[in-house]
């Protein structure tokens, strides 16, 4: 029986600013988790991660993070990834500053 695959997004940090970014279906990077490409099978996930790793001039440390479909688009599953979508708890800094 095949393993159950949890849907993923490819995420990384932007090279110049350090901001959290996500790979879109078009192969570019967005700062909005909801605009990320939600990948639903393991083979595609590996390929898309390789595509991201090839963009080392734009991003640092791409990896696959669990995600789930939501009303606006993909939503993070783990609390760490949820924090990465907004910014720190103690100041309105990071993405929540915008």
């Amino acid at each position, binding site marked *: 029986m095949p393993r159950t695959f949890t849907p993923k997004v490819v995420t990384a*940090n932007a*090279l*110049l*600013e*350090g*901001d*959290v970014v996500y790979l879109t279906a078009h192969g570019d990077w967005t700062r909005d988790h909801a605009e990320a490409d939600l990948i639903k099978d393991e083979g595609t996930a590996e390929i898309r991660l390789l595509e991201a790793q090839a963009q*080392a*001039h734009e991003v*640092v*440390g791409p990896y696959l993070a669990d995600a789930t479909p939501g009303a606006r688009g993909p939503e993070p*599953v*783990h*609390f*760490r990834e949820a*924090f*990465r979508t907004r*910014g*720190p*708890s*103690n*100041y309105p*800094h*990071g*993405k929540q500053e915008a």
Partner: protein
Amino acid sequence: MYAYTDFDRDFLAERNAQFRAQVERRIDGSLTEDEFKPLRLMNGLYLQLHAYMLRVAIPYGTLNGAQMRQLAMIADRWDKGYGHFTTRQNIQYNWPQLRDVPDMLDALGEVGMHAIQTSGNTIRNVTADHFAGAAAEEVADPRPVAELIRQWSTDHPEFQFLPRKFKVAVTGSAFDRAVTAAHDIGLRLVERNGEIGAMVLVGGGLGRTPMIGKVLADFVAFDDLLPYLEAIVAVYNLLGRRDNKYKARIKITVHENGIDEIRRLVDEEFIPRRAAFNGADMALLEKIKADFAAPDFVAGSGEFEAQYADDPVFRSFVDTNAVDHKHPDYTILTVSLKAHGATPGDATSDQMRVLADIAETYAHDELRISHEQNVILPHLPKRHLRTVFDTLAEAGLATANIGLASDIIACPGMDYCALATARSIPVAQQIATRFEELKLEHEVGPLKIKISGCINACGHHHVGHIGILGLDRAGVENYQITLGGDGGPDAVIGERAGPGFAYDQVVDAIERLVRGYLELRESADETFLDAYKRLGAAPFKAALYPEAKADAA
């Protein structure tokens, strides 16, 4: 304070120019991230959760007004108007952009500061007692020794690729405010037959395998100190585990080989190393000592006694935040960076400038950063205390809570740190706010609460009277409590109390614990730690886990 020489300035300028070229090559694609990462880490630049982070060394926690003002300027110009002071007497900027970092380093270099060896598997920023040179009970000022070690270890060619990072702390006081027993090497300056030397502890550290350092040598004379330290690090460099990063620290080397074997190897290594030192280090130490000469103290306490008697708010501030100085007309004032509900260790650029102004105008132009994430005015004349208090109050810096429940050490946790497994800062903020609402902390008295957001223990939770460790339990933040830890001269690792608490339960748990202590103590003079030592863990666990008590009934 140590005065930088032309050699120091040229060294920093060359190093910064080298890093500027490396950043440009990363941005234009000539360097891959794999190539660039070790280079940026050698210059204190991390990539954290939401942004880059630049960690700047404040050697042995000492800085002057001009340096503090420059830190404020950097915060305004290239960051978000604040800085975070850490448990290793560093300052961290949480929001720099990659292309700005070389300019930030140049700005630091203008005032003799840098970020070298604040990261990587090297000898890190040397830390020391934050009351150094001022404390009434001090045997000797530890900072000249710390500066000597800083100069010896900076870019030491043999020690740039150690098995893991390596931390050295120095104290000149029996009270050990530098937590020397929790460092890879801890130096305690002691007197023997009229001579000052160092007791050397080795193999202490917190993290996933917390250990208290062991005494390697009772007394090492100053002229033997550098070759002796070099022998220790050389033995570790050869013997330290490189196969497993979790077993790579010297505490594991000492544990696996035994302190007697480590001593034998160090003594053996010391002989040729000692012969290679020609005395230049001692000439340097004498020069450094002169740089750390005490200021010219001015006698007289002015209107202080009357001011102290007249105003209970001022009196409470002095009683809580000021301690005896070696000069009777002076005090050592700790300025809290833990206003209730604020982020422990953070200072805005405006607050940094206020502190710089106060130091320059009233306090012999000296400031310290403590490992407890506060700022100290080490030489404050009592006659200026009232004015300084009023100035601090205007800047939101007059919180009278040093050593109390809200004076919490907290690591950056998952709000900033890529390694963290749970948040620390909001838990600390909520605990401090709770105790402010309860108006209880002065009644509770001395209590050290320390929070780490992961097992690496940057928040020193193992040596907190109450330690809190944030973990990820099945995708949810969970907080374990440890009890009875102590970072003082008889350092003790706290014991885990039992199952952890959810994020929304941990503040209530701490309140139950502290209220339990108030019921258990013999008198107001018996501190939380003393009561714990007298009674053991059981009654404190009963306060923490009332449901378990009910189940057992």
